[in-house]
């Protein structure tokens, strides 16, 4: 029997992106998200596309005989892909839960074409913040003197540390990354050769993740 599963490419909006590219994008996004102190733009369109692909595959697989060796192999691959997606989403939720107020505030400053949170995440973040606020008010804040009852002042301090150090690989040549000096050294400018690996602060290379020049490892 001809194996036609997986030959269907994903038609994303007007674009025709092959399934393996969608998968690669998700894998890269997963690793970037894992190691980045900040919350990166959501890849939810890719996530949805891949979930559809997985569903399609699973439906197709039910048509095959259980003893067909391909069944187990396909299921294994699907389990692997599901793991990447769930780990990706879980990492994002953890960040949202940790820095809720900051992330929501940042989101309001962004243009609607460039959201960092998916719709689901945005709703979750708002609900979570409301729950936290209510919890703190009931437990503590309503019992303290009025000048100190402001919930938001406690939330101000929970922000991601953009000065954290991260490991990265340069996917192409990048010139002129400025490394901040300290009290004893001056600022330094470095070039990142394609395929070289580095450890450095997140801040100077933050924009390079967005344009795909570097990959966090």
């Amino acid at each position, binding site marked *: 029997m001809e194996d036609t599963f*997986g030959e269907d490419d994903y038609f994303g909006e007007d674009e025709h992106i092959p399934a393996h590219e969608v998968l690669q994008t998700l894998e890269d996004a997963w690793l970037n998200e894992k190691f980045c102190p900040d919350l990166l733009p959501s890849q939810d369109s890719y996530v949805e596309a891949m979930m559809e692909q997985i569903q399609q595959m699973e439906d197709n697989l039910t048509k095959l005989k259980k003893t067909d060796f391909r069944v187990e192999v396909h299921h294994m691959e699907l389990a692997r*892909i599901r793991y990447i997606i769930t780990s990706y989403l879980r990492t994002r939720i953890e960040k949202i839960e940790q820095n809720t107020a900051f992330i929501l505030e940042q989101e309001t400053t962004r243009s609607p074409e460039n959201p960092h949170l998916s719709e689901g995440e945005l709703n979750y973040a708002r609900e979570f913040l409301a729950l936290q606020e209510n919890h703190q008010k009931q437990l503590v804040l309503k019992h303290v003197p009025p000048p100190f009852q402001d919930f938001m002042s406690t939330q101000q301090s929970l922000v991601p*540390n953009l*000065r954290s150090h991260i490991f990265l690989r340069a996917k192409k040549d990048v010139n002129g990354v400025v490394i901040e000096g300290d009290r004893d*050294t001056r600022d330094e400018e470095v070039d990142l050769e394609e395929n*070289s690996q*580095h*450890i450095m602060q997140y801040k100077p290379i933050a924009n390079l993740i967005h344009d795909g020049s570097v990959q966090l490892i």
Partner: protein
Amino acid sequence: MDPSEVEFIAEKELVSIVPNFTNSEVHLISGDVGPFRAGLPVNVPIWMALNLRQRQKCRIIAPDWLDVEKLEALKEEEKSNRFFTKMPSEHYMVVAQLLLSAVDDDIPRVEEIRMAVKDLWDVRISKLRSSVDTFIKTGGSHARLDYLTTMEINSVRPLLPHALDFIDRLQKASEGASRRDMASQD
């Protein structure tokens, strides 16, 4: 990152197997594999190779670098090189662990190979630890780590980044003070 996650990533690497069955190409989402012809070698991802081997549907062929003499040569090169040498595989340690434990009868001299890989790993890890110590002591917040594999980088995570973050915080605390000292000297 947990070592099992590094393993997960490494399992995507291709390895050569000899299937004992025949089948047309399999169209995985990550790409096509096969076709499979009994007795003829074909490349598949390691996760698949391990599964097929477990189901006794194939024999795994060790990559040619997984050889005692070659590994010992690499070890010597590593010892004499100031920097890190390029490894034959981005995930040499994981591939060795996975393949050697799954396939004792497919690969001859398994124990010797295992020792040779471990020796190479130990040399590199020890070099990494010294480099990390030197890096921290000499200051600076940027370093190049070419040819270090994922599992090796993972061994100093989050220790190294956290130490660097901490030193950064310690120095920032002082910067406020220095500026004030300089101003008071006027």
